[in-house]
């Protein structure tokens, strides 16, 4: 089977199970039917938007000072998925960003590298090359990012290709159309299939919360994605407004907590889009910490999807250390 002259389907991932045969879900049991999904999602508690926003706002008043702030900022750097997702991305741009991800502040060896560089599939080979040996992962968006409006075969081929080219992490988008049309089984099956197709890459599932029409759906979509095998759930593509917000992230954190309680499987989270300041980042970490606790305060369970955040973190770190307000001119821009 080919599509636009490219082989698609299962060919590049022969080592894996065919996409149509889903693995037994640890949460939903051996046979996943629309009915099973329906009853699973019916048990998801509703969310009161005003209450969730209040809680997020209350946590935003936490004041993190001095050494604690430095520790939080350092952690935030290590949690950054430095991202470029533009039509005009080039290999050259990727090389520059890779160097930024590996050594965010070339003048300061104490600054840790970012978690990953997040790019379009086309640029995965370049990113892999540029980051070899750096410890920084390569993340690739996939599944017809950002809309997800493509046939499953195309999505699988794209994800599998990116993984086979060395992407450590696949940031897939869910089929919001199917979700909103009530076809949750389709969403579930796609996630599961993509997870299989790109194994052993880490599967990050983008819910695109700004398109889901409310927090009840965000929570349901979170539970659905986790049941289908998501290693991370991610708020947004960054192409839709609103993208990540504190309240929507809180709702997802609470879903992760519930899923963990029910299944024992710890799923990570990645708020993405709109997080550009260190102050915002610290607020996310406070919320993470007070909702899921210490076990989630690690890049293996939390990422920021951001592009300009990194430099603001660096500026803040230097301000806390030196007591001098900083200028962007002293930090590298790529």
């Amino acid at each position: 089977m080919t599509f636009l002259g490219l082989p698609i389907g299962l060919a590049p991932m022969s080592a894996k199970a065919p996409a149509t045969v889903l693995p037994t879900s640890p949460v939903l049991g051996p046979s996943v039917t629309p009915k099973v999904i329906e009853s699973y999602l019916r048990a998801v508690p509703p969310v009161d938007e005003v209450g969730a926003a209040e809680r997020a706002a209350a946590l935003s008043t936490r004041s993190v000072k001095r050494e604690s702030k430095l520790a939080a900022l350092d952690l935030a750097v290590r949690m950054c998925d430095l991202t470029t997702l533009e039509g005009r991305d080039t290999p050259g741009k990727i090389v520059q960003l890779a160097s930024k991800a590996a050594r965010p502040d070339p003048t300061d060896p104490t600054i840790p590298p970012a978690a990953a560089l997040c790019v379009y599939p086309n640029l995965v080979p370049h990113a892999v090359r540029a980051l070899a040996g750096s410890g920084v992962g390569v993340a690739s968006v996939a599944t017809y990012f950002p809309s997800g409006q493509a046939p499953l075969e195309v999505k699988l081929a794209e994800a599998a290709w990116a993984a086979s080219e060395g992407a450590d992490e696949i940031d897939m988008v869910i089929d919001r159309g199917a979700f909103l049309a009530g076809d949750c089984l389709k969403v579930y099956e796609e996630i599961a299939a993509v997870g299989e197709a790109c194994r052993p890459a880490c599967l990050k599932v983008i819910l695109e919360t700004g398109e889901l029409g409310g927090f009840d759906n965000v929570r349901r979509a979170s539970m659905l994605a986790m049941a289908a095998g998501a290693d991370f759930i991610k708020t947004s593509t960054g192409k839709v407004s609103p993208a990540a917000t504190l309240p929507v992230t809180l709702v997802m954190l609470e879903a992760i907590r519930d899923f963990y309680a029910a299944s024992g499987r710890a799923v990570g989270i990645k708020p993405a889009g709109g997080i550009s300041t260190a102050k915002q980042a610290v607020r996310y970490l406070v919320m993470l910490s007070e909702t899921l606790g210490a076990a989630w305060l690690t890049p293996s369970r939390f990422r920021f999807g951001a592009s300009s955040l990194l430099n603001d973190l660096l500026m803040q770190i230097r301000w806390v250390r030196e007591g001098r307000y900083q200028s962007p001119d002293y930090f590298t821009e790529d």
Partner: protein
Amino acid sequence: MYDQTSERTPARRGEVVPSGLDYAPSLEAVDQVSIDESYDLWIDGKPSPPAANRYFPTVNPATEETLTRVAEGDGEDVDRAVAAARKAYNGAWGKMAGKERAKYLYRLARMLAERSREFAVLETLDGGKPIKESRDVDLPLASAHFFYYAGWADKLEYAFPGLDTRPLGVAAQVIPWNFPILMLAWKVAPALAAGNTVVLKPAETTPLTALAFARLTAEAGLPPGVLNIVTGGGGAGAEAVAHPGVDKVAFTGSTEVGKLIQKRLAGARKRLTLELGGKAPHIVFEDAPVDQAVEGVINGIFFNQGHVCCAGSRLLVQESIYDAFLDRLKVRLASLRVGDPLDKNTDVGAINSRAQLDKIGALVEIGVAEGAEMYQPPCALPERGYWFAPTLFMGVSQGHRIAREEIFGPVLSIMTFRTPVEAVEKANNTPYGLSAGVWTAKGSRILWVADRLRAGVVWANTYNKFDPASPFGGYRESGFGREGGRHGLLPYLRGGS
């Protein structure tokens, strides 16, 4: 500190999830507050030494340090204060047009907002409440209250068509220690907007923000005698409410004292409003937005250390979700930060006084003795000061004293119910009726339950919300009269009730 290298074994279901991120102490600066060596009464627009020349200490409940000494007013002082209030009522204030009264109230609202941080720190020092709350709740609401009622001062004839909207005269107002400046605003703003003058008796343990406010009125140019403040203990309050020169009495405090005042005023032909105690039911149905409900329950009982007349102190959880809900509640409880009220990250501050701490302790002991199961999260309390750990009681039944009596502290009694009818029956099975909470995603059930709850305020899918435009007050033994909103004017108008 978070763990950088190893992934910890994550918490198991029902286990306490520790808070991972460390917050260094983040103390609000106290240098913006200056506290005098001692404070006199405030009568006729200026400080006035007490007739008996007696002063009593006011302490910081978080440290037990004496902050300053405050005049102890007696009958003679009340006499002078009432006379000053009467003079102002018969004089400048009584003759002033509503639109001019309004401008004074607007001015006070603005000045209170301007000095908001200073007042917040003073409130926290004197009363022990977390700076987070005095800063984000008490002060903004107090200022908003003056702003709201300022607007009514020249529109009274539109508030209640056909009602006699003339003022009553001199109002004696006695306020509690749980929200000192906010309760001052709730009392003083509508009274002055309606054209009355005031003799205010602040609570014995928290007089400082009222005295600071008195100075603000002088800066605002409020005519002398419009607001008089007599500090002191219960004796001064009793003198004030019973004074023959007083036309109107407003009291916020315990039901016990409220009854005494009502009795004392029998036959006196004074208008009376009482805002008294409560034992609010907080009902959580199985279909509730559960995480917001947990927040609501936590906020409902631990806001201001539970020193809240409308605290949701009786949790009624539908039996089908009891275990799961309790798990969530315990996890959330563990993340409460108890400690220095001046720390911006403190969620639960100090108990207001030694006496209140003893009272809470005694009722909790009774709860244990009556066989309820007590749970407190691990939390280290400071050595000095008055502290009480957030406390849950499980296995509580309607007959337990901790389910019937107002504890006025961070203690939640948890019970279960099976059906909506049973929930409402249990909720209403109390002589109180101040407030109630209900959590359910089903709209028609909210309205059904809200209709049947005997409570002056029903918070549905939220809790502890206050707004100057929204009336607050109780049914039955929680008192009568409303504060806030259009209805909050009625107690201060001649044709009102």
